[in-house]
């Protein structure tokens, strides 16, 4: 159910935008989000941006694990 892939927005034109994943560019719709800007990373599902990815979180998936590990060590 969850094929949704992070893309970077490279052009915005109203509720339409061009998003890029790696070197491939694709038209996407922004109707499900507020205030999407060039450079934002968004999740795309079936042609629609469904969420902006927070960059700090995206930087390191493993942060979440570090937290868990620390909690376990305490426990």
């Amino acid at each position: 159910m969850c094929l949704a892939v992070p893309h970077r927005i490279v052009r915005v034109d109203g509720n339409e935008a061009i998003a890029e994943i790696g070197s491939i560019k694709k038209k996407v719709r922004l109707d499900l989000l507020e205030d999407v800007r060039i450079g934002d990373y968004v999740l795309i599902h079936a042609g629609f941006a469904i969420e902006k990815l927070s960059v700090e979180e995206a930087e390191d998936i493993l942060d979440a694990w570090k937290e868990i590990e620390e909690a376990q060590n305490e426990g």
Partner: protein
Amino acid sequence: MRAIPLKLIEDLRNLNVSRPLRFMEVCGTHTVNICRFGLRSIFPKNVELRSGPGCPVCVTPASAIKIGVDLALSFEKTIVLTYGDMMKVPGPTMTLADAKARGGRILSVYSVVEAIDLAEKERDFKIVFLGVGFETTAPSSAWAIKEAKRRNLKNFFLASFHKLIPPALEILASERTLDGFLCPGHVSTIIGLKPYEEISKRHKIPCVISGFEAEDIIIAMLKLIEMAEKKEYMAFNAYKRAVKEKGNIKAQELLKEVFEEEDTEWRGLGIIPKSGLKIKEEFSDFDAKIAFKIKDESVKDIPGCKCGEVLKGQIYPYECPLFGNSCTPEQPVGPCMISSEGSCAAYYRYGGLIEP
């Protein structure tokens, strides 16, 4: 691709688990990725991960396929569009792909946007979109209805078979056979944490929202095991980069504006109260079920097919007597074998747990 720290794999493999734990991955993409990455072979011995009902194509009742087939074959100047996954799902008479081979106008698309564009271009044709999918996909169907209204496209119709995940989790949790849910990442992107928090509390079951990279799944599993061991009955977000606590409010509002909840049939699970999305009266001009006077008749499940039990996590796909015998991706009996997200297909194609 980032290399996953071996330590993470070792941590999971060697984790001491005090009692047998049975979890469920709710989402079909999790099922596929767990098989594709070969992750089952690194789970601790007494941890079981069952596959759930989160493949939208699998839980769409056979009657939906029949509706698509009838629309394409019995109505003049009508084009049926749907997602690729739906094309080969067995229906009571035939698949959509069969209907296409018989001359029915059926197209598979990547996005509902293509249906709207086609409706604009082909004004003489009626364009019917078969909308399947959960909270992740339903907002785009809601958008399509509003867009058709805005552009005055009187030839666009949606047949909504959209479904909601939390009511299905309620039913599964209430059976008390599971020790935790690995929750679907992108459904959660839309709905946020609250629905899981309620289920966790009410049924004393931990919920962890997971992303789809192998790292995400391993981390979420570690957390789920920890919570089950400590009996922490709450919802934990292990996919913070894509899931906000309150979810996508704009998408939620759009869903509320266009759809209302109704009791609906899930293949294998029966009728689940308030788990379906029906087009509101205000938008009924675009409701294919009304425009084409479709009666949504329940179709009996196929004899011998255990997709229902697979979708509830009661059995593993290979425990179904048809699995790999009379039911294969070439000759599927039930939907779980044909959908790319179906548990049976994932086990069949990737081999589940491979014995060297």
